[in-house]
């Protein structure tokens, strides 16, 4: 899941600046589950921007999917066209898809934080950096690239204390977790293997996949 967080309302108002007619667009998937861009949050935003002229709202099923966005914007085309700017309550992908599809000013209402696991609503943990070269088979199913701040590949640095990370003593040391997990599942031999430097060429942005 793409984990998002609401931007401070003052920042949103500053970015809307001179725009008077505002269209508010949510996200029916990740941001709905995150409670940052669902029907309720769109309503809430309408109230927070009471000094503006809110010309319409919609919560497309997946604003990051151009085909679905096109379908879900059709019924609101008239009000959307009347807007000076579209405030998008979705991840950065949604904002850019809306801008690309409509050609209008699309502004972010959320900050995109990370790809994460949902423990419960309001409790999200980053688990994947989308590095393009998954090594979870080598590390007991725990990602050191994401969960070790230094992205170490050959075991923990000497900064762990009570199983916690030197960077933040409230977070677990990823490599102590990996060690314990791999010991439990009988994979210590694999833990001991030397892992070569990563190939960053394969994760150079912008990434794209186009089937031939």
């Amino acid at each position, binding site marked *: 899941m793409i984990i998002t967080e609401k931007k401070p309302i003052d920042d949103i108002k500053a970015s809307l600046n001179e725009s008077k007619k505002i269209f508010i667009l949510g996200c029916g998937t990740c941001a709905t589950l995150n409670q940052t861009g669902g029907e309720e949050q769109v309503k809430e935003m309408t109230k927070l921007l009471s000094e503006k002229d809110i010309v319409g709202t919609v919560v497309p099923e997946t604003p990051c999917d151009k085909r679905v966005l096109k379908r879900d914007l059709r019924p609101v085309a008239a009000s959307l066209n009347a807007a000076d700017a579209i405030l998008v309550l979705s991840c950065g992908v949604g904002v850019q898809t809306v801008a690309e599809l409509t050609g209008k000013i699309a502004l972010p209402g959320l900050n995109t934080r990370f790809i994460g696991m949902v423990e419960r609503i309001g409790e999200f943990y980053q688990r994947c950096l989308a590095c393009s070269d998954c090594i979870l088979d080598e590390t007991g199913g725990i990602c050191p690239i994401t969960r070790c701040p230094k992205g170490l590949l050959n075991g923990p640095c*000497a900064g762990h204390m009570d199983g916690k990370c030197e960077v933040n003593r409230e977070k677990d040391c990823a490599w102590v977790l990996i*060690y314990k997990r791999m010991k439990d599942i009988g994979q210590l031999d694999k833990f001991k293997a030397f892992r070569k430097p990563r190939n960053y060429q394969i994760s150079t942005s912008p990434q794209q996949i186009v089937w031939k």
Partner: protein
Amino acid sequence: MSFISSLEKSLATSKFTITGELTPPKSASIEDVLDGAKLIKDDVVATNVTDNPTSRVVMSTLATCHLIEKQTGLETIYQITCRDRNRLALQSDILAANALGIKNILVLTGDYITMGDHPEAKPVFDLDSVQLLWSIKRMQEESVDLAGKKLKTPPKLFVGAAVNPGLDPIEPEIIRLEKKVDMGVKFAQSQCLYDPSVLEKFMGQISHLDVKILVGITPLLSAGMAKWMVKNCPGVIIPDEMIKRLKEAEDKVKEGIEMMVEVVSKIAPMKVAGIHVMVPERADLVAQTVKAIKASGAV
């Protein structure tokens, strides 16, 4: 037999080797650190020169090492971390180190960037310390860089790493030391040690490894410092008795050094190669500690 450095020679031929540590100046002038080098010159075989320690900006390690060696004759151990440079920068600095006459290198991962004075900077960590050791091994043994491209003249450095005997769990640290030794590490300097029983256990656990251990020695200067270290420094275990002695001592620095003399007398018979004495920003105390240890006849 020829040795790359005085440090290598001392580790091979002396009963007990002592190294020190200096921090490059937060300054564009080398003078302050040269004074420190002169203070410890006769007490240590070589001195580490730290690399933006605790992620604070100071003068480049490479330049500091070179100027210390050139102007004081004290041999240096060039500390290199993976935090601030990618694999291109690291390799070019290693080639430069050799060209500047530096003989020893100590490879570290490096403290995380948010711990220092530029917490908003982008951390690098392109390589980890084991991978950097691998690149040095390839440069030295195969005369190629990490891309496999030929080096006209390979570097010839005596290579070390860090180790922390007080970590819990300890097994990942031992595995990591095994990897480092596989990658050409000949000596390892440890985290500050206060409890000889921690080291005794650790030395038993690494007896299969061909690596010289220099035990980290940092005199405690007050009970407050001791408590702070226990709380904040991973793997530092300080017996309560030491904290009590510091509280009661009238001259705390003298007591702190005396306790280190006692620790060294206990660890000297444990198959350790020697000690690594470090007191951040206080070269005078490094000299004082080494002199007290030597005078005691503990080593």
